[in-house]
């Protein structure tokens, strides 16, 4: 079971990333939880300064970019 975190304070880009992450999980057909991290203090704890960012199992995979569903799928393999 993977844990995906989408980091962002709620701007349109973060929402797009959230949707892409959902699509990626569906396409990969795996079990995963997707969590939205929108408190600045929590985002900082992961060491992220540029949102949107994506973390898988607590490890930050991408910063400041809206990944496509295909790109996210690679991190889930």
């Amino acid at each position: 079971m993977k844990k995906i975190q989408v980091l962002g304070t709620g701007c349109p880009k973060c929402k797009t990333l959230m949707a892409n992450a959902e699509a990626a999980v569906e396409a990969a057909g795996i079990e995963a939880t997707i969590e939205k991290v929108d408190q600045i203090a929590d985002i900082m704890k992961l060491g992220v300064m540029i949102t949107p960012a994506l973390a898988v199992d607590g490890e930050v995979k991408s910063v400041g970019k809206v990944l496509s569903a295909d790109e996210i799928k690679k991190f889930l393999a």
Partner: protein
Amino acid sequence: MDWKSEWKKWVWIVAAFLACFYLPVGNARFDHALLEAAHLVKWYAREHVLLCLIPAFFIAGAIGVFVSQTAVLKYLGPKANKWVAYGVASVSGSILAVCSCTILPLFTGIYRMGAGLGPACAFLYSGPAINVLAMIMTARILGPELGLARAIGAVVFSGVVGYAMQLLFRREEVAKIAASIRMPDDQDGRPLWQTALYFASMVLILVFANFGKPQSSEGVWAALYRLKWVLTSVCAAGLGVMLVAWIKMRMWKVGLVAAVTALTALATGGNPLAAFTVGALGLAWLTATDKGEGGSWFESSWTFAKQILPLLLIGVVVAGFLLGRVGQEGAIPSEWVARAVGGNSLRANFLASFAGAFMYFATLTEVPIIQGLMGAGMGKGPALALLLAGPALSLPSMLVINSVLGLKKTATFVSLVVMLATVTGYVFGRGC
């Protein structure tokens, strides 16, 4: 019937009914204000959209894609040299993205993980205040003088405000967060001179296409004015070559767009607006159909356009309705404006900066609003004060800053900005 949930709707319906019932149609001032709003919208659409806003969107989009954010952050990290950090923080607002949801995490990061309170505050001010789109619109609509004063003022301000914050709170140490900063991957392999030339060509297109007619018919400016469309075309051709050579666009596509643009110019007997529009549409087609960097460029520009255009339209309509065009009166009598912020008294400057600090300006809407205010009698000094304090601060952003910095520091930051804006406006107003 469940009145607990229905009463709100009832209030809305009654309020709407009363508004319609007492709609002041036929009242000369109201009718005139409506007309003014329509006139102002038309003027913006004719004068500012094609030649100014569209190239500005492309430039803002290109900054988001082609300028590496990592390079900026390197100078704001924990080990950064303090002076370099201030310098970079003051100008970085123009390079990094312009929405507040991007600024706030960066600000918190610089404060808690990086260079500390001073540079973080400098960055917090410069982020929304120094954005390329806003500078271009200010210079175009309110005049180059105010545009330049705004640009210089904003850069100097952010440094001064940041340093003052650092001095005032030098005793307080913040517990730094130990997490290592995660930087975005730096995949930007283009040498600096290529990026610089590429941006120069776009900025020059914007400058030459909007080149104003100088007052005298002789001298360098007049000569440049006569050649403005030739120079614009040369820059556009240069941009085309760079698109093929560096951004790796297909040569036949770029060539096709150039040919159609040139043909349009010939067919319309040298009508620059038609050729410019065709060229801009061509660039949109080139970038939108590109799979690599060009595609991201289009996406980023398109995001800006989608975000800003509706806000700007609403801003222009509201400003036109309330304040009217230059020399005309809207719904608010000019005397009121002149009494509050006319001339260049300290009081007028303070009122302008104070109102600006709390008011929320959606991106770029400060420009038509200030244009309206100036038409109604606002002095140049208070106009600059409003421009300097306005976009950088608003009530919603203060609340978020408050949650990061605490009440004392937030209050100090806001008062510093208001005070500095008042003084700068006053000095600027005396100088001209």
